[in-house]
């Protein structure tokens, strides 16, 4: 039953958009969305069943070399499946309002088709227990997502973003192929449901490295994140939500699966994952602060949150390495819960950002402002997402970060040196990340939704319709629900931990989850009472313009912009961020009108990858003389090949 529901969901979501191509345009959106919703509901039901029952395994023969239609839905898979289906469904509903045929006659059908395919690809790979099947799901997801990223292919920026994504994802896929082929040479089959491997063999290290590269690229681990900002920024917002919310998590899923193949991973594996996590988290949030593009900013936060997830995973691996089950539980539960949480609040943020961008027609933060008066629901949703992503209580982000923190603290207090180092470095790093995230999101929220509108376009916005607000509200409620009642999700986490080699120790025994309800609920209540009290006082009071310190000619453009807000932090970390500024030199007493421009580039892509490509391209181009049109030279090649081959191979 469970598996059938999920297979039905894969099939329905996959064909949803294609089916819609067969019906008249007017009904396309309805058919596609309805099919996808039915599929997603079935899938979500299946995932919930799987989270409550035993792991499901089933295999059918498949006439493909090395392939088998073999499926496995255990706790871990079910967790990811549930996330996929919920967010895909909400995104699809949102898409009805956001990306309708009327507004996007050229693209709407295409986007629906590939949206469904992406969803199906993801759920297929998660449910599969065979490498070939996994790769099929993986690449369907990756290529469909490429089509989604380059939806607006007439815009060169979007096209470039699509290309960067396409090239990166292929490099990842090739690593993945190497990984599975190597795994097969160890286990003798393409089955992914394999008995525990010995981590001490050299081949295991290679496996781990390949998995980390392949899945890390998809997850967007620093410095493999190069494709991510452009892709998330340029895709339609519900696609960004799907990609950032669940697609990059497929990388996490892969890493978790890869690591759990081994009984006791060496200490340095955990250390490496933790370090990568710290690097991603810190650098991700730093780059986010420097962005002017709202969706790019959110994209960098995906890098950050992937970092936090990896930190949890690193802690879990260290726990494994030292045989500390509690540490494993804390780290793994933190990582997995954060995977869910990030999916929820990042989707919420992208959807609400999309709503704002849709209304105002620009992604430039410094051209927005004051939207919350016209779009209170969107603003509220964004605020909930922002608080959640900063990991602040009493929302869901805090719960998962707390688990990671508890793991780090436990590590810090433990005897072995590596654990102590992990905790002593990890916890303050996470604190730094938290504070940076607050700075970044208060900036984004403030600059976009608060204050006065900076442009006319931002002044004349209006609130989105129910199709868009509904999914946002649902996600916001989920943020609060998991934040205030984390015990609700604890059984799912327990189930998932068992499927990756946990001993069955419940998360609740390792962390004070139920206490969070007793703190969170009153906190929310008191804050609500206080704010309502203050707001009622406000309604009864006088209103005047903001105090302008006596300067009478203030304009909306004199507000503190997001760039100015971030200026000090960007300056503090300029060694990494390498901000570019072009400031006019003002030397006259009455200077003419002028421009100031600042920009934080994608350092890894612009300073490392792109130059490497240029140099390599030039080096390869220097081989061009070989094929310069001279048939005489070509004859020489044949002769040389003949003579050399005769001499070498005899």
């Amino acid at each position, binding site marked *: 039953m469970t598996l059938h529901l999920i297979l039905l969901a894969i099939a329905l979501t996959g064909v949803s958009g294609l089916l819609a191509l067969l019906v008249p345009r007017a009904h396309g959106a309805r058919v596609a969305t309805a099919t996808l919703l039915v599929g997603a509901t079935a899938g979500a039901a299946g995932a919930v069943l799987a989270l409550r029952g035993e792991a499901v395994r089933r295999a059918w023969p498949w006439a493909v070399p090395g392939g088998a239609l073999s499926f496995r839905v255990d706790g871990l898979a079910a967790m990811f499946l549930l996330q996929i289906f919920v967010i895909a469904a909400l995104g699809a509903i949102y898409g009805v309002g956001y990306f309708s045929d009327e507004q996007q006659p050229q693209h709407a059908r295409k986007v629906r088709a590939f949206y469904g395919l992406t969803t199906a690809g993801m759920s297929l790979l998660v449910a599969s227990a065979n490498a070939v099947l996994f790769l099929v799901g993986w690449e369907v997801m990756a290529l469909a997502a490429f089509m989604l990223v380059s939806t607006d292919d007439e815009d060169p920026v979007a096209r470039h973003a699509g290309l960067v994504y396409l090239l990166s994802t292929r490099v990842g896929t090739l690593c993945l192929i190497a990984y599975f082929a190597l795994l097969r040479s160890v286990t003798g089959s393409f089955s992914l449901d394999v008995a525990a491997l010995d981590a001490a063999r050299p081949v295991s290290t290679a496996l781990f490295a390949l998995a980390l590269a392949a899945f890390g690229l998809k997850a967007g681990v620093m410095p493999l994140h190069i494709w991510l900002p452009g892709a998330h920024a340029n895709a339609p917002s519900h696609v960004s939500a799907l990609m950032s919310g669940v697609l990059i998590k497929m990388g996490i899923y892969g890493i978790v699966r890869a690591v759990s193949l081994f009984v006791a991973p060496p200490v340095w594996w955990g250390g490496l994952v933790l370090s990568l996590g710290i690097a991603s988290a810190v650098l991700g949030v730093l780059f986010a602060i420097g962005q002017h593009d709202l969706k790019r900013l959110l994209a960098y936060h995906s890098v950050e949150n992937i970092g936090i997830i990896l930190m949890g995973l690193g802690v879990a691996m260290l726990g494994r390495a030292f045989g500390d089950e509690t540490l494993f539980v804390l780290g793994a539960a933190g990582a997995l819960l954060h995977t869910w949480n990030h999916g929820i609040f990042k989707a919420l943020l992208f959807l609400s950002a999309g709503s704002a961008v849709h209304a105002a027609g620009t992604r430039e933060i410094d051209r927005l402002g004051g939207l919350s008066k016209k779009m209170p629901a969107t603003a509220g949703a964004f605020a909930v997402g922002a608080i959640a992503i900063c990991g602040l209580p009493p929302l869901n982000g805090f719960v998962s970060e707390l688990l990671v923190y508890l793991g780090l603290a436990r590590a810090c207090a433990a005897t072995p040196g590596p654990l102590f180092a992990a905790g002593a470095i990890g916890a303050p790093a996470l604190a730094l990340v938290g504070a940076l995230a607050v700075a970044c999101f208060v900036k984004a929220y403030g600059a976009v939704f608060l204050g006065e509108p900076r442009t006319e376009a931002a002044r004349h916005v209006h609130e989105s319709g129910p199709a868009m607000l509904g999914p946002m509200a649902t996600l916001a409620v989920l943020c609060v629900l998991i934040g205030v009642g984390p015990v609700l999700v604890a059984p799912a986490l327990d189930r998932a931990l068992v499927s990756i080699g946990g001993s069955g120790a419940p998360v609740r025994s390792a962390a004070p989850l139920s206490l969070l309800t007793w703190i969170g609920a009153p906190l929310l209540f008191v804050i609500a009472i206080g704010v309502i009290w203050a707001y009622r006082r406000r309604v009864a009071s006088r209103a005047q313009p903001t105090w302008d310190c006596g300067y009478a000619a203030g304009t909306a453009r004199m507000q503190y912009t997001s760039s100015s807000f971030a200026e000090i932090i960007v300056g503090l970390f300029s060694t990494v961020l390498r901000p570019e500024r072009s400031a006019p030199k003002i030397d006259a007493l009455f200077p003419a009108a002028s421009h100031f421009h600042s920009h934080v580039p994608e350092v890894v892509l612009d300073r490392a990858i792109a130059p490497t490509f240029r140099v390599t391209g030039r080096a390869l181009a220097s081989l061009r003389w070989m*094929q*310069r049109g001279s*048939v*005489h030279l070509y*004859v020489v090649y044949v*002769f040389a090949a003949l003579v050399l081959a005769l001499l070498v191979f005899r």
Partner: protein
Amino acid sequence: MSSAVDPVLVLVLLLNFYVVGTSRLHAVINGVALQGAVLGVLALLVHSGSVLSVLVALATILLKGLLMPMMLRRAMREASIRREVEPFIDYVPSLLAVAVATGASFAFARRLPLAPQHVGSLLVPASLATVGTGFLVLATRRKAITQAAGYVVLENGVFVLGVGLLEAMPFLVEVGVLLDLFVAIFVMGIIIYQVNREFASLDTARLSNLKE
């Protein structure tokens, strides 16, 4: 196997030098034609007297000694050119190169053990040296006609060995091979004709528009 085989093979080798050493296209074509005819004789000598060898010899002399040179001469007339100009390797160095190729062929042939009936013969080195000469002409001469002639030399080199293997290559194949070669030269002739018309030149060094 007749004792006259080796002198004939030496003639083949000498013709290599002749073809490489001259700039006049007439001389090149004549050299190639003579080489072809000599191969026909060779076939007779190697398998003295069998019907098969007579037929092959006749076919060879007809095709390689008469028809192919005719085609080339016609192309030459159409294009009204007489001399090869500025080869990529000049004539004297070319002669030296052929000498080196011949030496190398002898050295390489020592590695290949011969069948009892061929022990001591020049069959293999002569074949390889002629193939090498063919490559040299193909790679260094500018005129399409010279290149076509070089291709025939290359084929002649292959044929030297083929003659030694007449039993292994029954008549049908042998003639098929000859016919194919003929058609190849024929097609080349057509192309040469068209090239000449389109480019107003037969300098293949000018055929370098297609490149990276």
